[in-house]
Each structure stands twice: as structure tokens, then as C-alpha cells.
């Protein structure tokens, strides 16, 4: 177990290095730099030069990267020149929002997907399955922003149940906070629910054809028992994998949802920084997302081993 954990931590280092190095390289190569953006419409050669020098943009790339890396490993992610705010501060401000959106969306998605996926697989081809499949295909074919606009129109403008945009912090007013997350989380959750339902259903249909399932039935076990205790775990692999990918991705922010619902999440922070060539912010967010991805996928790998103990002991081929 300890080797397992140590192996995973060791793999975090090269991933962090590769991701931050490449993103630094590519972002720096893009035309335009922060000095040009900040100098504004009345830029003069002097102001651009002064800004460039202050931002150390006249130094060679490797030097700047190593400089950043050196500070980053000590926890100093630098200060954004555009806003004069510390990157760590900005991430810390926005992380709870991104986390809350992601958590509520996944819970919503799974609450729908798991029961419907199981039920669809159990009676594959039946009315529920056909309806659920149809609904899933429908949702998958609609882009997120269309869903968002329709939801805003229905719930906020017509029915006035929840606010259209904006956000109240959890500690200020939990009820308002949940209300403000309802629509954005639902927008994300619909797409995830459709995907999870399809994946779970597919894997479970295959599992239900196994002989040991027939044996469990022959032993006289009730259906719900077979479905939940014997069939669900081995059918969860694909679902779990995609869940992990989605969580990692959402930790990097959900740009469209954040923009439409005016949620100050990590997604907007990153995209705005890329467009403004604000390297320190880009690097800070990228580093953070890389860590998050590795950790989340590490968690998923652990879960594989929990769901199927044989994996834990799998050995490499010679």
C-alpha cells in the first residue's frame, strides 16, 4: 500500500513539471505579451519597454521559468501584474465556488444516473429504458449554453424561483447560496447525468449477462440485492473513470457556465489570464489543476482496487 502511494506521489512531480513547463512555453510563444496588453491604447515605446522590463519579459524563457518554479515550490505563486493581486489569493477566492459547483453538479448527476442506469439495464429495451435513453440522447445533443439559457428563462425569469445570476457565499446565507448554485449546477449536471446513465447502463447490461448473476438468482437472492450488491460494483468502472475525468476538468473551471451565470470561478480566471497573457496567473492555475488531476485520478485508481481486489495485486508482465 505504501509503495502504491509513494509511486503515485512520485509520478506527480514529472506531471507537474511537464504541464507547467509546456504551458509556460506555449503561452509565452503566443503573439502579444502582458506589457503590450497593459500599456493600453496610448502605448508608447517607453511605457511598453518599462512594463516589459518590470515584468522581466526581456529575460530568456528558461530563466523566467526556473525563476517561477523556484518560487512556486515554496508556495509563492507570484502576483498578477494586471490586477496587482496575489495569484494564491485569487485561486483561494475562487476555489470554493468552483468546488461547490462541481460537487453539487456531480451529486445531482449521480442521483439521477445511478437509479436510472440500473433500472434501464435491468429491463433493457423496456419503456423506462427507451424513455431514459431518449432523454439522455436528447440532452447530449444540446450544447451547454442552450441548456443554460433555457433554464434561466424558465426558472429565473418566468417562475422567479431562483436568481438568474450572481452568487451568495455559503457562510453569508446558506439558503441563498444553494439557490444561486441551482441553475448552474443543473446545467452541468444534465450533461453529466446523461453520460453517466449511458455508461452505467452499458456496463451493467454486460455484467447482468454473467453467470454469477444467474447463480445469485438461483440462490434465491432478491433482485434489488443482486443489482446493488453484486452487479453495481463491477459495472462502475467506466462511470468512475469518467467521473474522475469530469471532476478534474471541472476543478479547472466550467467556463461557459461561469460566464453565463456570473460565477467567479477558476475557469474564467484562467481564460481571462490567457487572453491577457498574464503568465503568473496561467501558471498558478495550471499548476493547481495539475495537482488536482493527479490526486483525483489517484483516488479513482484506488477505487478500482476497492471495487475489484484482484487489481490491487496485478503484476507487471516480464
Amino acid at each position, binding site marked *: 500500500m505504501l509503495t502504491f502511494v509513494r*509511486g503515485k506521489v512520485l*509520478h506527480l512531480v514529472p*506531471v507537474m513539471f511537464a*504541464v507547467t513547463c509546456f*504551458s509556460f512555453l*506555449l*503561452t509565452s*510563444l*503566443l503573439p502579444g505579451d502582458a506589457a503590450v496588453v497593459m500599456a493600453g491604447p496610448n502605448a508608447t515605446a517607453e511605457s511598453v519597454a518599462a512594463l516589459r522590463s518590470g515584468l522581466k519579459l526581456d529575460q530568456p524563457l528558461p530563466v523566467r521559468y526556473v525563476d517561477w518554479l523556484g518560487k512556486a515550490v515554496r508556495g509563492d505563486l507570484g502576483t498578477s501584474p494586471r490586477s496587482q493581486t496575489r495569484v494564491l489569493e485569487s485561486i483561494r477566492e475562487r476555489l470554493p465556488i468552483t468546488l461547490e459547483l462541481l460537487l453539487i453538479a456531480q451529486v445531482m448527476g449521480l442521483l439521477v444516473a445511478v437509479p436510472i442506469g440500473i433500472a434501464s439495464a*435491468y429491463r433493457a*429495451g423496456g419503456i423506462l429504458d427507451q424513455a431514459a*435513453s*431518449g432523454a*439522455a*440522447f*436528447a440532452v*447530449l*445533443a*444540446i*450544447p451547454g*449554453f*442552450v441548456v443554460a*439559457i433555457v433554464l434561466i428563462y424558465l426558472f429565473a425569469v418566468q417562475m422567479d424561483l431562483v436568481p438568474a445570476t450572481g452568487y451568495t457565499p455559503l457562510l453569508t446565507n446558506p439558503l441563498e447560496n444553494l439557490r444561486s448554485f441551482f441553475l448552474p449546477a443543473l446545467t452541468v449536471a444534465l450533461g453529466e447525468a446523461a*453520460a453517466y446513465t*449511458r*455508461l452505467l447502463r452499458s*456496463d451493467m447490461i*454486460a455484467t447482468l*449477462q*454473467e*453467470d*454469477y*448473476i*444467474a*447463480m*445469485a*438468482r*438461483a440462490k434465491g437472492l432478491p433482485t434489488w440485492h443482486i443489482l446493488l450488491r453484486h452487479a453495481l460494483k*463491477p459495472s462502475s*468502472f*467506466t462511470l468512475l*473513470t*469518467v467521473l474522475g*475525468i469530469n471532476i*478534474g*476538468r471541472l476543478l*479547472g473551471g466550467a467556463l*461557459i457556465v461561469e460566464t453565463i451565470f456570473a460565477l467567479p470561478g477558476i475557469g474564467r480566471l484562467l481564460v481571462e489570464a490567457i487572453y491577457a497573457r498574464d503568465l503568473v496567473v496561467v501558471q498558478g492555475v*495550471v499548476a493547481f489543476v495539475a495537482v*488536482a*488531476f*493527479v490526486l483525483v*485520478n489517484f483516488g479513482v485508481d484506488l477505487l*478500482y482496487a476497492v471495487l475489484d481486489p*484482484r*487489481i490491487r495485486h*496485478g*503484476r*507487471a*508482465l516480464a
Partner: protein
Amino acid sequence: MAAHSPDLTTEAIIVAPAAAGVDRPPRAWHRLGASFWLSVAWLALVTLVAVAAPALHLADPNLQDLTDRGGSASPQHLLGTDGLGRDMLSRLAWGARISLTVGCASTLLGMVVGTLLGMTAGYVRGRPEGVVVATMDALLAFPALVLILAVTTFIGHDISIIVGVIGFLGIPAFARVARANTLALAQREFVLAARAMGASELRIIGLEILPNIVAPVLTFGLLVVAVAMIAEGTLAFLGLSVPPPAASWGAMVAEGRGDLDIWPQVSLIPATVFFLTIFALNLAADRLRRVVEVRESRI
């Protein structure tokens, strides 16, 4: 996950047959059903129109008529016009080329490369697995927007490049799905038995593992086709896809978004075509799968 190894299972377990006097399953054709054929017909139509678009005598998809923006159906414009007065039907036909190419080709790219990598990682384990997993994690964590901006700025906006980038970005997901399923499969009895019987690793991967991960990978792949097509639409909205005035269905939906309260059909008509195509694709694949998987649920 189904185990396609009849030799082992017949001798293995005492099984009560599903039903004593069960009929033989009807011919494959009949099991496909009307909805399958309808879906195939739609997909065939769309593909045909996409391929033959230059040869069909359609209106110029780029000819604007600013006096008839968001116009309703008329003899000259069978499906009306878009936000700049261009013929909707013609644009849908030309847009199909982009949407279908991007949707299918990029998914195929991600699927083939990702599955190979994932299978290898899940089967071989050890250091190769570590390298693959680390690389996939790095790719997933990398800011896609930076990559896309860099590629389109330095290489170009040609459709093959868009396909390449979206496909490339899809590789890690397929790799993870393939690996997850391979991990579970590799421990199964029929694999161990095959190895004990002296089958080469390659044969095991090809004949035992691969057929059994086809189902989850393909199911995932169908989701990815929809995602890829929508992603291209979002990219087009951000200005990162093929340059205007050319437009995919996704791009048409995205562009019409600002005018949903003035002329909603400009977004909704391409959205409907898009929807029907994804629906048909998933439905057809689902029916096919049902027929191919001969065995029934055991409860």
C-alpha cells in the same frame, strides 16, 4: 463486462436456464426494429448531403441578404435564412461536412490512439503503465485553450488541424476508459486460463481483451462524438475553428445564440438537425449492440 469464452463457461457453473421452453431468438434483421432503420436512413441522408454538397444545386451558402435576416421559410429559402440572410438549407448542407468530419474523425483518432495506449497500460502494468498514466494526467491537466490558441496561431485553422487538436485532446479520456476496463478484464479467469494454455500476450490482448472492451469504449465513443461536435461549435464561437463564413452546425447554433429572442429558429434549426443526428447515431448503435450481444440478462 461480458466474457466471450464459451468453452470455459459451459463447464463452469450450474445454471438454471433462463426459461425451459424459450424460443430461439428471431432473425437479426427483425430485432433491429423500425427506429433503427429510421436512424440509419437519417444518417445516410445527412452523410450523402454532406459528401455531395458541392454537386447539389444549392444556393450560395455565403450570399447575404441583410434585408431578410432571420427570415422565415419561402420558395427561395426552404428553411428560411440565418442572422445575415444566408440560405439556411444550404448552410446546413455545407455545415454537415464540417460537423460530421470533426465529430467522427476526431473521435476516431482519440479512440484508436487512446484505446491502444490504455490497453497497453492496463495490461502490461509496471513502468510502461506509469509513463502512460502520467502522460495522460499531464494532458488532461494542460489548459486546452492554450494548446488550441497556439496550434491555430502557428499552424492554421484548416479543418484537418481542428480535427487533430480535438482528437488529440480526447486521447487521455479514451486511454483511461480503456485502461480501467483492461485492468478488470486482465484478472478474469478466461485470461488467466488463456495464458496458462500458452497463448502469446499479443493474442491475449487481441482476442480476449479487445473484444471485451469494445462495448464500453464504443459507448463512450458515441458520447464523445456529440461532445466533439459541440466542442467544435464552442471553438467556432471563440473564433478558434475554421474561419467564417464557413460554419459547422455547432457554430451556427452558437452564432444564433445572441438573437434567440428575435429569431430563435436561426439557432434552433441547426440545433434540431444536430440533435437528430446525435440521436440517430446513438440509437442505431444501441440497437446494433443489442443484436450483437446474443446473451440475455440473467435476472
